[in-house]
């Protein structure tokens, strides 16, 4: 079923063309990676679909409704600094559930705290957690309000490479359990091929859709699978990089 529809999105900031004629259809439950070099406007695109920016041209619709403002049915996950430092782990996860009955709230908080592996840290404050734990906390806070769509803007960019790999595995596990539609912005080619159902490759400024690559490898993905390497190298080639150092 069609979930998110980008129609001829264009964006100009003070005379600079940032995005041009972006068209994309995302089906429900799909994991999409928006991939492109720094400054290609991929974060701008995510902010448009998230309702934080209004495009100069075109429109985004979700379930047929035009996006005009942020909405609690679709949660934006920032890099780990998005968690509230003045709240404990439990309070952060429960942040979006203020209106809910206490019992339901407590159950949901406990469920998602455990899902992201933060059991035992319920009363800790974010500054007592590692970067990876803060990132998981933010994902749990987003999931707790049961959104249909998650927007992730280079969520693992600030983590070390080992933690980043673990976080990808965690995110896939959560996605398979919850079946949310995910739009994930990254500039990391490997990351996009490991995670996405489809990788949307954007060009340098102004960002245009160069190509959409179907990653037809089932999860869990074997990173030495010839098909994985083939798709990865195709994207490297598409971006104009030889896969050599």
């Amino acid at each position, binding site marked *: 079923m069609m979930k998110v529809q980008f129609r001829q999105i264009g964006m100009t900031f003070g005379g600079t063309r940032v995005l041009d004629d972006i068209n994309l259809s995302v089906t429900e439950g799909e994991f999409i990676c928006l991939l492109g070099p720094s400054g290609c406007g991929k974060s701008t695109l995510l902010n448009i679909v998230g309702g934080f920016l209004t495009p100069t041209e075109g429109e985004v619709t979700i379930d047929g409704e035009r996006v005009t403002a*942020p909405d609690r049915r679709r949660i934006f996950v*920032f890099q780990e600094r998005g968690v509230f430092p*003045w709240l404990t782990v439990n309070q952060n996860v429960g*942040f979006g559930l203020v209106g809910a009955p206490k019992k339901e709230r407590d159950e949901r908080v406990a469920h998602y705290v455990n899902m992201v592996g933060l059991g035992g840290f319920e009363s800790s404050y974010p500054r007592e957690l590692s970067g990876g734990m803060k990132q998981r906390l933010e994902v749990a806070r987003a999931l707790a*309000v049961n959104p249909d769509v998650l927007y992730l803007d280079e969520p693992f960019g600030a983590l070390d490479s080992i933690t980043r790999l673990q976080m990808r595995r965690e995110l896939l596990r959560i996605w398979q359990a919850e079946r949310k539609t995910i739009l994930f912005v990254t500039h990391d080619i490997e990351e996009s091929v490991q995670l996405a159902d489809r990788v949307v490759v954007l060009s340098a400024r102004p960002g245009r859709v160069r190509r959409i690559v179907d990653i037809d490898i089932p999860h869990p993905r074997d990173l030495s699978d010839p098909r994985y390497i083939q798709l990865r190298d195709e994207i490297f080639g598409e971006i104009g990089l030889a896969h050599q150092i």
Partner: protein
Amino acid sequence: MSSRGLGHRLLPFAGIAIFVTAWHFAVLRSRSGLLPTPWQTALAIGELARKGLLVKYVVASLFRVTWGYLGALVLAVPTGLLLGLWRRGEVALNPLLQLLRPISPLAWIPIAILWFGVGDLSAMFLIFLASFLPLTVTAMHAVHNIEEVHLRAGINFGLRSRELVREVIFPAILPQLIVGMRITLGIAWLVVVAAEMIAVNSGLGFLIVDARNAGNRYDLVVAGMVLIGAIGVGLDALMRSLERIRSVSWGYATE
């Protein structure tokens, strides 16, 4: 280990001990007859306590500071929040705030007496003036320093403006606000003493001028000064303890 620990704990008192000793011998040498030795100062504090003036004056000073300061806090925090969030308001009012800030609260003493007469109200008004501007400016700047991602997260979770202030903006500015509150309380304590020298007939500031005017009782003058210092340290420690609250202490972490 334990002796080193003890020495370490006593170290902060070394400066005070040296100063008191130097003071003692300096007074003995000068033979001025007016300045008290540390011991005579301690006796003067005892005399104040016996006469019931110690508690009376300390309470009088703290009473004025408390009400003037709390009144300023209650008005300054919403004002600072409003100006921090509402750009046009800030542009319109900030020059006025900057113009008023360098005027010492003491310069307002004649006007305070004109409006409120000699009494508690004048002193409280001066404390209010001394506290209101720094607290407003602190709150305003703290709002500017809020992380954009926190505001956006609050909006994304569907908070309306009042909830956003309560759930995100206020907790986000609290660490900086508490630092401003601590500094401002220090200023308020300085101002109350000065205000009491002129505008009222009780309190530690009054004690100091009164002791000098009524028979050059410099032992009482210095006793008043010692009390002012000690209470100031106490007030500061009280405010510092707020900084250790766990939902606030994140703001002071050096990462």
